[in-house]
């Protein structure tokens, strides 16, 4: 049961960190509870489907289907997170304002909810499918269902703790800079996802140039460690980044930051 709990904790940790940041940053979207629930429920179902299709996905696209699939999910999630942070800036959504106060039309107002649900769904797919596959393997090996469920529940609880702590910590920041802080975290989250996507595309053999690691900072902080994997998820920390990953990361940050800055100047004029 313990080994199951440990693996599930690691997978859930990644999901909960992303959710913690995204949910804290979008706190001003009132009435989002059912969209979050829909995203989570869809994520569970989606994970099961991806797990069942794992073999077929792997064999696709010259045997690189899994890498392409993962890269695509990451890029889509990054794009949607970038959209969210830009949308919120455009509609002057500081964390305390209500949607209605800003006078946003109803149709315009629903789009960020759809996006939030999809971001949650996408974030759950990869790790969620691994949890499903792990569970299937464990059951086939003869471990009792109760043992599996116990291990999974412990893992989910433990993994969620960090995300919950992140969320509570972020929403308690009582300075006028809280919006900038959560927005910055969303930007780095998206950039990290793009960097990860590049890694998968490199594994698929699609991106060749600038694919040698530039340095190895494992001696400082290993991606293996708890802090290292948390940073890997939150800001895309990589102990051995390639030139292409670095370029993509910086490019994403610059692109989103420029768009945000332009939103700011337009609003003020």
């Amino acid at each position: 049961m313990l080994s199951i709990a440990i693996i599930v904790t690691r997978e859930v940790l990644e999901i909960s960190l992303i959710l913690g940041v995204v949910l804290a940053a979008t706190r001003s979207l009132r009435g989002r509870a059912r969209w979050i629930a829909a995203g989570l429920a869809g994520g569970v179902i989606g994970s099961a489907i991806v797990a069942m299709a794992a073999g077929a996905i792997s064999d696709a696209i010259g045997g690189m289907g899994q890498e392409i699939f993962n890269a695509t999910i990451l890029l889509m999630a990054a794009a949607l997170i970038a959209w969210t942070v830009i949308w919120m800036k455009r509609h002057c959504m500081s964390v305390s304002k209500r949607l209605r106060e800003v006078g946003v039309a109803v149709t315009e107002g629903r789009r960020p909810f759809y996006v939030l649900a999809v971001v949650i769904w996408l974030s759950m797919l990869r790790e969620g499918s691994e949890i499903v596959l792990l569970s299937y393997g464990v059951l086939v090996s003869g471990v009792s269902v109760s043992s599996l469920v116990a291990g999974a529940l412990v893992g989910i609880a433990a993994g969620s703790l960090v995300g919950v702590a992140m969320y509570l910590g972020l929403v308690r920041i009582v300075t006028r800079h809280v919006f900038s802080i959560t927005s910055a975290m969303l930007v780095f989250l998206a950039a990290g996802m793009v960097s990860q996507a590049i890694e998968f595309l490199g594994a698929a053999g699609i991106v060749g140039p600038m694919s040698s690691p530039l340095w190895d900072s494992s001696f400082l902080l290993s991606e293996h460690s708890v802090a290292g994997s948390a940073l890997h998820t939150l800001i895309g920390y990589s102990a051995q980044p390639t030139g292409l990953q670095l370029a993509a990361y910086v490019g994403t940050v610059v692109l989103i930051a420029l768009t945000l800055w332009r939103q700011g100047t337009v609003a003020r004029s």
Partner: protein
Amino acid sequence: MDHAATRRRLFLALVASLAIAQVAAAENPDGRKRGKYVIEILNHRFVPAELEVPAGKKIKLRIINRDATPEEFESYPLNREKVVAGKRRITVFIGPLKPGRYPFFGEFHPKTAQGVIVVK
């Protein structure tokens, strides 16, 4: 922001990427000859646990899962993570690599599934 145009562009990018992927996957790395770089998973262990490959070349690794349960081939120094379903096989491209030892493990059974790629 023109959402329709953005969606079109994203879709085209996705299609283009898939096309490039097919072409890229057809490239001929070392190890394409059958059975050259093969690692099997048996009873949640990698066999062989140590595999020697040449430095400076793109290598095609075949991972064959002889177990009925899935495993995830993962390696931090190689920057690879890939699930292999039970009784299935996957391909993992690695390299070009500098000489050294590159450990990998099976995330679903980390205690027993341990191995290393030795690059000479």
